[in-house]
């Protein structure tokens, strides 16, 4: 949203992919353009994402 000015998972800096054959298991990754803004963690209501400072990663 912040970069593309639209909700667009295909262009988001966070990628969420369902694992093949495990339809309730997901893999979360980030593209190189992620600038650690923390918006995704802010809107994750399940605690799956937690923002850490770069040094903690």
């Amino acid at each position, binding site marked *: *949203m912040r970069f*593309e*000015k*639209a*909700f*667009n*998972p*295909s*262009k988001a800096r966070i990628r969420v*992919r*369902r694992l*093949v054959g495990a*339809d*309730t298991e997901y893999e979360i990754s980030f593209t190189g353009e992620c600038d650690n803004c923390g918006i995704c963690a802010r*809107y994750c*209501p*399940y605690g799956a994402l937690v923002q850490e400072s770069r040094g903690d990663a």
Partner: protein
Amino acid sequence: MPSMDLPGYAGQVLYVDLTKRHIATETLDEGLVRQYIGGWGITNRLAYDLIPPHVDPLSPENCIIIGTGPFTGTIVPGSAELLVTSRFPLNGAYCTACGGGHFALMLKLSGYDFVVITGRSSRPVYLKVADDDVQLCDAEDLWGRDSFETVDELRERHEPCSVIPIGPAGENLVSISVTSIDKGGTLGSGGLPAVMGSKNLKAIVAVQGTKGIRVADRVKLQRLVDGMLKRIMSYRLRGTLLEGGFFGMTSAWTALSARISDNWSRIAFTAAPDVKDIHYRSRKPLACPSCPCADKERNRLAEGPEADMVTYMTHYAAMGSLGGEDAVDEYRRSVMFLDAANRYGVCLFSFGIVRELMAFLYQNGTIGPEDTGGIELSESFETTMELMRMTAYREGFGGVLADGLLAAARRVGRGAERLPVHIKGYNVFGDARLTGMGTQTVSQMVNPARCGGCAGIAGSMGSASYNLGRPVEQWRREAEAIAVPRDAIERVFSPTSFSAGRLTRYAEDWYSLSNCLGRCHRLYINRFFDAETQAGLYSAVTGVEATPAELYEAAERAWNLFKLLNVRVGFHRGDDEPPEAWFSPLKGDDVEFPLMDYYKTRVLSQRDVEGILDDYYDERGWDRKTGAPTAQRLAQLGLPTG
């Protein structure tokens, strides 16, 4: 083709003719958006304009009209609602099914707010929508597979995607069929899968598109959503919801285990097995996009002979009635029953009600083994499972059950046709002799269609509105929160009670608005929306400033159109009457339950119920005699009057 350029909307309508294998897009008419907002407001309007009124639901001319709303795909909590309008085979009503899952989001990301499917393919196909790549794909190899297998296979081919499949019941044109979205939630009770099956349409797949969803004012939207999420995260029952899902919120109902028998004339109370612990151990929560409440689930049986069996969509309506020896056994049976229903695509409620009537007729000797193909209609679990399989395939006596309660009773004859307890040919949720005559009951009576599952109960207004005996002050506060006009509040409420008929009109309009916007109306999401916040969200998403009253008018327009669709094919005031059985007390061993008002202060006669209906029509500005919108009201709302 250029898209309409209003934020919150993808801007296009996709048209698919299965007969001609023709696919086209049109720009979404901004006039429609201004008049109906989106969602079911527009699917109803498209149905009114495109479907010949008296169309055979299973003919090529019937349409399946899929819709999303302006909230779909945004961060508004619970904004994943998909709306599907068609003429349903169970009772011939025009109805809109609604359900969650990822489909609405995926569709909108491909650039479409609405899809209109018509015609009939000469061979099995599935529709794949992936941005501008829209195809009818061969489905010969999928035909015959159950709903869950179909989703698994199509995910293998098209992930990331969302799938609406049909199972054997849809393929065999079973009227009491239901489908699902992504295995996570049911869609279209009353035969939507049969409509898909009649078109040789095995599934609809929305692949995650690349087009993005714009909003007008991101900062305002985030501020409003932040406020809502703060309240949602501190909701005292959120933990119960995440741990137990829908069952966690309704376990008090199933624990009561009231068994109504003898064709809705007798009641017995038994202690249901306590399955809470095993359920919680078996469950993994699943959420729709943007939903912070995750009431859906994957369920892996933790113990018992079928340990490790995996299924979805378990809400245990049958719990306590499947003859389990203990909690583990009862839970196992319930999971197996629901798994079978969902894989076949048979509506467990509609199946349960017709099976029970047939068992009653069998026990009193009206029908016998010669009618059932030798099957003894007992309540045994094995018989129930076998009957469901036979229903899905229209095999033997299953063919009698497949078209639902009224058709089955008519086929039996011998007086059975006078026995079904129903409203507009659809099953009743909750017996009003137990619940009292609140909005949940009145809304079932006056709902123009009844099919479609939750679309048939619009009585959920604010929080916990299914609960019994809530204080009148609480109802009044909620009516004020959803901006019921002040003069109406004076008509609806007295110091000690409320008019269920009048209040139902506003509960319906609030529900209608959520369907226009594309947001969930389950009570634990709905309770966090109020009229002001919702209007603010609408303007943040679309850039269109609208007052709560203006949004209400659009929602009322959508509801009147929903009514008009059904008046046009012959539904009338007589169809809004409650079942005759409700006017005789429900009898237990040492207690009786007559039909009473919501606060259980007095017994209601048929004349009292007529008065409640009069109040409802009066509050709607409709004709009391016919129960239909007046030409004057339709003209005021800018709806067709001819």
